[in-house]
């Protein structure tokens, strides 16, 4: 058997089995009501984030002066805020921003964290020591404190929020990945690959990575929900994205001063944060359950 043939076989086999596995995974996920709810909520919010700009009846910062402070009605489903902006549109349009910021930040953190975690776990030694001690020192600070500190130094903008998510979550992902690598790297199939003389990159990506993936996917979902919370918190504290952005946290902050007068301006964005975070957490729970069951088979 030549190397060329083997790789063709593998790629063919992977394509079909991946699809099959994904379907199986989805079926198992939806077999439990809680994880089905979580997955539905998450999908719904992602859908809203994508379609928001097309279905929002008004612009995020469109001020309808004559309609300020209106309670929910058929024209303004979630009412209007103190400046006459449509709360429904702002919540819809805010979904895109918060999911994109949190999603992109999480993605970057997961990629960097996975790479560093794989290398640190597999190579060990001084490389491992240095990276992990640096990460430990970052983890010693509460996430929000670290975020505030970073925003103080890099200034406030969407990009800085992205950097904050990246810096805050990379160490956590790296730690989780490293712990899986440590458990796997002494096992027979890894030893065998090393003896055959496979390259380090091949061993890491083809031999070890598949074992890391289940944990990593759950961890990513969790980080994603935390990141949403972080973006909203920074908005609420007024240090993240700047007004008039329809950031849900910022909306809650702005609406706080007149909460008793126009409660709808605070309830809907607050509910959006809560629901999406709960949804993603339920999904992560379900993913964990399904992946563990698959692993045990």
């Amino acid at each position, binding site marked *: 058997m030549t190397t060329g043939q083997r790789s063709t076989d593998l790629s063919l086999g992977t394509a079909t089995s991946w699809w099959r596995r994904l379907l199986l995974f989805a079926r198992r996920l939806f077999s439990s009501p809680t994880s089905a709810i979580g997955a539905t909520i998450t999908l719904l919010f992602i859908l809203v984030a994508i379609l928001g700009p097309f279905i929002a009846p008004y612009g995020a*910062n*469109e*001020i309808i*002066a004559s309609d*300020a402070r209106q309670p929910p009605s058929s024209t303004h489903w979630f009412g209007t805020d*103190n*400046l*006459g902006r449509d709360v429904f549109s702002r919540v819809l349009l805010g979904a895109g921003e918060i999911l994109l910021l949190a999603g992109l930040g999480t993605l970057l953190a997961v990629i960097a964290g996975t790479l560093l975690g794989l290398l640190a776990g597999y190579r060990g030694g001084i490389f491992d020591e240095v990276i992990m001690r640096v990460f430990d020192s970052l983890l010693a600070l509460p996430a929000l404190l670290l975020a505030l500190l970073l925003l103080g130094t890099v200034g*406030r903008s969407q990009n800085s929020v992205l950097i904050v998510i990246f810096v805050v979550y990379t160490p956590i992902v790296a730690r*989780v990945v490293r712990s*899986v690598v440590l458990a796997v790297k002494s096992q027979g199939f890894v030893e065998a690959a090393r003896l055959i003389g496979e390259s380090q990159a091949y061993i890491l990506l083809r031999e070890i990575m598949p074992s890391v993936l*289940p*944990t990593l996917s*759950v*961890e990513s979902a*969790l980080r994603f*929900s*935390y990141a949403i*919370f972080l973006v909203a918190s920074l908005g609420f504290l*007024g240090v993240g994205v*700047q*007004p*008039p952005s329809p950031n849900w946290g910022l909306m*809650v902050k*702005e609406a*706080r*001063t*007149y*909460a*008793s*007068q126009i*409660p709808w301006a*605070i*309830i809907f964005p*607050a*509910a959006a*944060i*809560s629901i999406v*975070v*709960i949804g993603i*957490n339920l999904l*992560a*729970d379900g993913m*964990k359950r399904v992946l*563990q069951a698959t692993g045990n088979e």
Partner: protein
Amino acid sequence: MFSNLENAAKKRSVHVAVLLLAIALLIQACASSPETAPTPAEVTERQGVLRVAMQPIVQLDPAFISSDPEVIVANSIYDYLVDVTPQNTIAPRLAREWTVSEDGKTYVLTLVENATFHDGTLFTADDVVWTFNRLRDPDVDSPTKNLYSNIENIEATGKFEVTFTLIESNPFFLFDLSDNHALVLKADTPVPGSDFNGTGPFKIASYSPEDRLVVKANEDYFDPERPKLEGVEFIFFNDQVAQVEALRGGQVDLVMLLSADLFNTLIGEQGIIPLEAATNSFDVVRLRADRPPGDDPRLMQALRLATDRQAIFDLVLQGYGAIGRDNPIGPMYSQYYSEDTSLPERNVAAARALLAEAGFPDGINLELHTPDTANRPNLAVVLKDQWAEADINVEVFVEPESVYYGNNGWLVVDLGITGWGSRPYPQFYLDTMLTCGAIWNESHFCDSELDRLAKIAGTTMNEEERVEAYNQIQTMLIERGPILVPYFFSQLGAISEKFTDFQMKPFPGRSDLSQVRLAAQ
């Protein structure tokens, strides 16, 4: 694979999310729950402790105080020579009467003879001389040094008589003597501000920084009728919502400097009296005139044309105040205020055309800096929306006041929103904000015609001449000035109905607490 720690953390995050929703609902529920007012007891002399909620104070030396909380504390412990009434007239305090020479250069003040400092020493003219010499001393570098640079000499012409001699005549000098910083200290005080040794209606009882400052009635106050309270507690809150909730909950009795939104929530609340005071306070939207892009006055004109003042007034102020006319002379100065020059109507097309003429045919991008206090963030958001229609795209930066004013950053940025407090007469704004090289000339504007008119208005003893000069200044600023003044806002506050005789002044920190007393049942 999954540590307990992660599971716990995940559950916590669900809990936090649920909690957030609960809190949002709770805030709203609490906010609308009715309060019952406690019944005040039988009222006799010097009774009751007024609890005032306000931002923490930082500066204790009267020569350097600036915020309302700092001024209200100082105004309780120390005395001014004269006070300004809410009707903008001069009222006696430590100076019981005065004479002004015809040329407006010599002011002779007769002082009260029975005032003592809290340490027991008698108050005399020497204390006044020392205090004002300090305020104008360039080495002390108080913000008043320019205000008092016109003083040629200060002399004690009797044990209880002081004579101020001016270089140029100043019709507003009595108002200047009542500047926020001009509280009389004991002569030769080694570290001013540290010992709270004033002649004022209240004496210091305790001060715990960032928590509270407590004062008790000065039994030896020169006016035996005052104060009418046993004492005052200034309780520090960083958060305005918390201040209002404390008022509702009966933990404090007086809040001031409220936003319109918070103020509205208090209207109709049982046991609470809403307070509104018309003022000449305003927010200035200004563009640096000394460098591109603002050095082309057409840009400022375009900003003005793109602004819908009525919408801003309704949305941002919710009607508490007056619409501004792009100059600091507001309707409160009834004798000087003029509507002779009409403001241009909003015209987006004309704004675009002007922008194109100024070299920005495709619109312009600007950064708009604003402090995070009062209505300024809302103003910034509404302006962004209105200007966007004329292709003037601004990115809003909302900064804490300490950042906005820190390191004089506000004097550097091109486009900013700055709040200006109410003053008893308009000359102050011209001399500090708009004349060439003025100390707070944030727009870096310099126009010889304005300087000439401001000089006339500020020195002539002829009232008609002054009215004319102020009229011309208003016209000039509307036509080519560097500032946009969208509104003058009212000061809003609220007091518990347990207290009476509180009159909120346009500069709330100058409100007189020595008149306040417990309400009779």
